[in-house]
């Protein structure tokens, strides 16, 4: 299973971030450079020990930009190399990723995403970086994005990401959110398909032959630059033909389909089960590759179901892909919030709502942070009044306890002694 003497800790409780490191070591990654950022640090700490033990080099560099470029350098040496980061670090890495895509250099990026725009201090898990990962840099490039939904799948898809990168000479992203990064599950046995990988004839490790090897992402002539862009598009077409991955569950008689990936796919699975118990014919479609997106498969489904419900921990970053796939064949609804997984009860409620012919109620600030009102009570004046004003402005003046009960699935009147009302 491993590409070296490393034995993954099968059967043992394993953290998602560690599973990504396990995948990297199994794939015989030779170089990892990174800069610490929550929640990627567990991965950084893991590979800092595991990689050197198996012949690799681990370096902590000055910033994310240096990290991705050093990984680029290691990759042009013909070695397998990886880095990982989170939203604010991704902002810095976009330059290196776009350049590696244009120069056609294989590397793997672990994206362990959290909430917010720009510098984020809350550190709450979210799926907020998917849109920028799809190609946040300049020019017409795409990055293959794999979105695992379990710890075992994180390890497996990380190994596969290295193969994909080598096969298509491109950076490949393994994207998980903060929940999966810190989730601890038993690492199940898994198999990675053996692929025929092309020899790295472009690598600078090769001896200089006639004319030598020059790895460039831009040429002195504009015609050659244009030609490269065409070549890239051809590569993306080939990927769309052969590298689409998805899972469809309970789809045979489904009338209402939830589209979700990563941790939200697991939440949605539970919601679909509950909705089915109540008589709603629900199904689950989980894109595993967010690029290439399972457009044809989802389009076919859109032609035979009543409605599609997209649910993400963001404000709709794969929603445009789903809408394009559905192409007007059925209505596409959306349920999202900026941070933390949406509870199964809320997804179930949304399914019941659309099954009853009504539109989905948007998730408000109060839905996401029901406990904010509890914390308010401990604040001294005048901060308390100021915060109350802000919350009231953002979330309306509803009874927070009712929202908490709804979100946590608690029946009224069953609170313990600690139960509070506002």
């Amino acid at each position, binding site marked *: 299973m491993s590409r070296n003497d490393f034995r993954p800790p099968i059967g043992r409780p394993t953290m998602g971030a560690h599973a990504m490191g396990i995948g990297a070591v199994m794939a015989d990654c030779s170089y990892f450079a990174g800069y610490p950022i929550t929640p990627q640090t567990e991965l950084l700490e893991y590979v800092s020990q595991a990689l050197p033990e198996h012949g690799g080099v681990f370096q902590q560099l000055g910033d994310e930009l*240096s990290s991705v470029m*050093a990984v680029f*350098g290691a990759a042009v040496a013909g070695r397998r190399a990886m880095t990982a980061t989170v939203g604010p670090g991704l902002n810095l890495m976009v330059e290196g990723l776009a350049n590696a895509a244009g120069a056609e250099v294989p590397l793997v990026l672990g994206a362990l995403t959290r909430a917010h725009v720009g510098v984020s201090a809350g550190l709450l898990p979210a799926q907020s970086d998917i849109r920028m990962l799809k190609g946040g840099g300049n020019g017409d490039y795409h990055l293959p994005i794999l979105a695992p939904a379990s710890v075992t799948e994180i390890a497996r898809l990380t190994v596969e990401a290295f193969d994909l990168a080598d096969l298509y000479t491109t950076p490949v992203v393994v994207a998980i959110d903060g929940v999966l990064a810190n989730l601890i599950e038993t690492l199940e046995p898994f198999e990675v398909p053996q692929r025929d990988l092309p020899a790295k004839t472009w690598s600078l490790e090769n001896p200089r032959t006639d004319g030598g090897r020059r790895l460039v992402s831009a040429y002195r002539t504009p015609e050659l630059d244009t030609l490269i862009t065409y070549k890239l598009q051809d590569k993306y077409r080939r990927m769309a033909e052969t590298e689409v991955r998805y899972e469809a569950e309970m789809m045979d008689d489904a009338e209402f389909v939830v589209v979700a990936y990563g941790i939200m796919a697991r939440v949605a699975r539970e919601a679909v089960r509950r909705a089915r118990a109540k008589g709603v014919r629900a199904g689950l479609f989980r894109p595993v590759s967010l690029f290439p997106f399972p457009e044809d498969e989802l389009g076919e489904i859109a032609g035979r179901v009543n409605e599609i419900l997209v649910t993400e921990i963001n404000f709709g970053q794969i929603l445009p892909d789903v809408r394009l796939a559905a192409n007007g064949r059925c209505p596409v609804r959306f349920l999202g919030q900026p941070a933390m997984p949406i509870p199964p009860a809320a997804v179930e409620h949304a399914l019941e709502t659309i099954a009853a012919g009504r539109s989905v109620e948007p998730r408000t600030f109060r839905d996401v942070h029901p406990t904010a009102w509890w914390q308010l009570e401990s604040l001294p004046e005048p901060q308390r009044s100021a915060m109350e004003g802000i919350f009231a402005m953002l979330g309306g003046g509803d009874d927070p306890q009712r929202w908490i009960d709804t979100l946590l699935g608690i029946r009224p009147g069953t609170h313990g002694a600690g139960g509070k009302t506002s």
Partner: protein
Amino acid sequence: MSSTYQPPVGIETTRVGGTPGTMTGIGNTWCPGCGHGTLASLIADAIDQLGLQDRTILCPGVGCGTSIISQIDVNAVMCPHGRASDAATGLSRMLPDRTVVQYSGDGDACGIGLAGLMHACARGENFLVFIYNNNVYGMTGGQMGPTTTPEVPTTTFQSGRDETVMGHPIDIIKTLEAYPGVAYSARVSLASGVLVTKAAKIVKKAFQIHLDGIRGIKIVDVLGNCNVNWKGGGVSFTPQTANEFIESTIMKYFDVGEVRVPEAYRKPGKK
């Protein structure tokens, strides 16, 4: 291929031991009188003399200097602007038996890429760095840069660096004196034949120290002209007057000579 090499017509070039065999002989795109060609020849000459053509990997950053990729016949990777130190880090870590060479301009190394370069020096990475320091952003037409000295005319500060707004130029060699990870550092000038001959020795010495297995950054800051784009405020130069300007003015701010030399390579009685 070297036999097909022709120097630009009408321009006197300083030859150091003939045209190096490591040069591709492809006509270069540098402006007449530019020192990039001289520096490329010096590097190619050192590679020739030390037999390093098959083990050298060149990492040019972005700027006029990027064209060196077509001038020197060695394996090379073009790096984004300011990222050559980082790419050279990954490359040299993975291929420790190769001679990895960063080739940057002053804007590339001391402006946008300063953090990467300083961290590489702090970590004591094992590669060579050559900076073609012409005091301006030449490729974009002569804007002020991090190393611009006060008298150099630029298109963004036309009467030279305004020290009340833009402070003082970065002396990269002095800056890097603080780092034990720098094995060898020196500044040379291409302003005259005598200075080019001295520069040739120092460029070769940097390669020799690397070849002898002394770990660390070997960095040479090379003062050269930008006779075409030192044009701010309507000033104009010829290659000749530009080189004289380096000697008379720029070298007042930037000392030429070796700064960090490994012990075994010092002349007796010198530190």
